[in-house]
């Protein structure tokens, strides 16, 4: 099967589900709230259907596969998504600066396990400290943004 069909199928199915759900929700709304969403969600459904039809039509077209054909990301990317979610949840618990410090150390060690030796590790700690110091100067000291606090800072 033509590898780009997978991409089209994903885009079409996602668009159909998203557009269909919001189309259903739009119908429940009263006028004038529904006018614009109804127009756009029905367009989303139409575009998704067109993508699906074209993907079925071109499934037998032979194309040389390339590296970027897959939809699913690498395992490393999934780890980064999970780390980002944990980091964001930790902000409320630990505080912004401490969770950010741990985030830099943790994410950089996932990305490059070779740097877990003492010297590179100290370099990472130092870099994250300097970076967070600048963040503090700009956001907490100058702009005076209310940074989320937790058990730590």
């Amino acid at each position, binding site marked *: 099967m033509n590898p*780009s069909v997978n*991409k*089209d199928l*994903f*885009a079409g199915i*996602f*668009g159909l589900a*998203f*557009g269909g759900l*919001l189309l259903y*929700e739009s119908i429940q*709304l*009263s006028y*004038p*709230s529904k*006018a*614009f*969403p109804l127009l*756009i*969600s029905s*367009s*989303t459904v139409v*575009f*998704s259907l*067109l*993508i699906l039809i*074209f993907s079925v039509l071109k499934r037998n077209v032979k194309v040389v596969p390339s590296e970027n054909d*897959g*939809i699913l*990301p*690498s395992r*490393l*990317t999934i780890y*980064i*998504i999970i780390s*980002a*979610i944990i*980091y*964001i949840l930790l*902000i*409320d618990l630990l505080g*912004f600066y401490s969770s*950010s410090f741990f*985030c*830099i150390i*943790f*994410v*950089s060690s996932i*990305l*490059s396990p070779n*740097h877990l030796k003492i010297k590179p590790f100290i370099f*990472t700690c130092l870099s994250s400290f300097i*970076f967070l110091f600048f*963040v503090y100067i700009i*956001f907490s000291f100058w*702009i005076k*943004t*209310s*940074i*989320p606090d937790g058990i730590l800072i």
Partner: protein
Amino acid sequence: MPEISIISLAVNGLWNVLSPYGLLLCTFGISLGIVVGALPGLSSTMACALLVPMTFSMQPSTGLILLGAIWCGAIYGGSNAAILLNIPGTPSSIATAFDGYPMTRKGQSERALFIGLVSSVVGGIVGVLVLLSAFAPLAALSVKFGKPEFFWLCIFGLSTIAALSPGNAIKGLLGASIGLLLGTIGLDPIIGIPRFTFGTEMLIEGIQLVPGLIGIFAFAQVLELTEQKSVVIAEYKTTPNLIRNVFGELFSTCKANLLRSSIIGTFIGMLPGAGGPVASLVAYGEAKRWDKDPKRFGSGVSDGIVASESANNAVIGASLVPMMGLGIPGCPTAAVVMSGLLVHGILPGSKMLLESGDIAYTFIMSLLLVNILMLFIGYGMLRLSANLLRVPTRLLIPMVLIMAVIGSYTLRSSMVDVYVMLGCGILSFFLGRAGVGAGPLSLGLVLGPLTEDAFNISLTFMQAKNSFLEVFITRPLCIFFILLTITSLCLPVLLDRRKRKKLLLNRKRKVL
């Protein structure tokens, strides 16, 4: 007002700005603006809003010089992050990333940054010259631009989708419609009914533009960089004869694009509510449409950066046209600057020229000087910014993630915006893998609330007048935009057909 008096006001204004204190304020404002603009989440509006209290103790004209310098610097600064990291520092730089980042990947970061700088300066000067020469008559013209006309302008803006999604216009349309739908989440702007919140209170206030865009560009870029598994984003190479090269290219091959994009930016900037993001995306789309080889856009061409940067900087001067002429701010930053004027007891509007002409012209002349100074200050900071490429990706990825989080949070001090950023980022990443680009998605998100507002108000007019044609079609500016949209959609197809016919004819001749 007699012409001679305007000239003398302009000369006096220039004299005020050229004082050592004025020059110092300009330099400080530009440098600060560039730094602020380069940080995702910190917009020119926020920078100006933060500095308005600082101007209370200053003379009105000096306070305005500082605000103008920060505004110009921030809009240009947004291009630095867009070019180097594929993360627009401000929403106005979305289109800059389309060609700026590919240039960085090719090792031409320094050239891309300098092209962005020179284009910003040219666009900025064009916008200010329009403001200087014709702000009173143009201000009167801008109020003739009603909601039906604005609706068609938004549709014209959406017609650039085809230009933003090479090879697959339907996927581009799908991306834009998803973006438009994301923009409708939250309270309905007319009667305040919650829409698409699925019972969660978090979504009642809707998806804010800045966190949404940070997610679409910054967080999705974090994931893209992870996928690439490279040690650094790109190799940093210095460009020999940078100044001569860039000036030569811009003023020979790109001059038509530079002028056209500056004019587009000036025109869109004058319309209240549109602003830099719309201007830069429309200018990019038009640059691609009028190019002899549109397929090269997106692969790292100078014209892409030229279009976006000249248009978004031209917006600055132009958005002051309705503000200074009528007291209607053209964009959020103009509203902040207007608040600075009001604090000093200066009422923007038709009488401003008569009552506070000296202050008005000092401000206008300062914008002109700021744009010229920015060329030197920006050039000085160019290599400093480009050194960002030396930071290893294992450190850059978590740092960008942290900047994305703090940038989203700062907007309203709300963790909801951080969750929105994360959600939009993951959505954009997966849609990107399915061939639905971030450009159409962001265009939809930017234009969504503007289009809906214009559409709903036009519908109300239509009900009151009981005529669809009279409201949506037969108004002269509506006709103009409808024709422009049809032309812009059909022209690439017609040109493509003509090209194919020519190719076929040439082949036949060769065979014969």
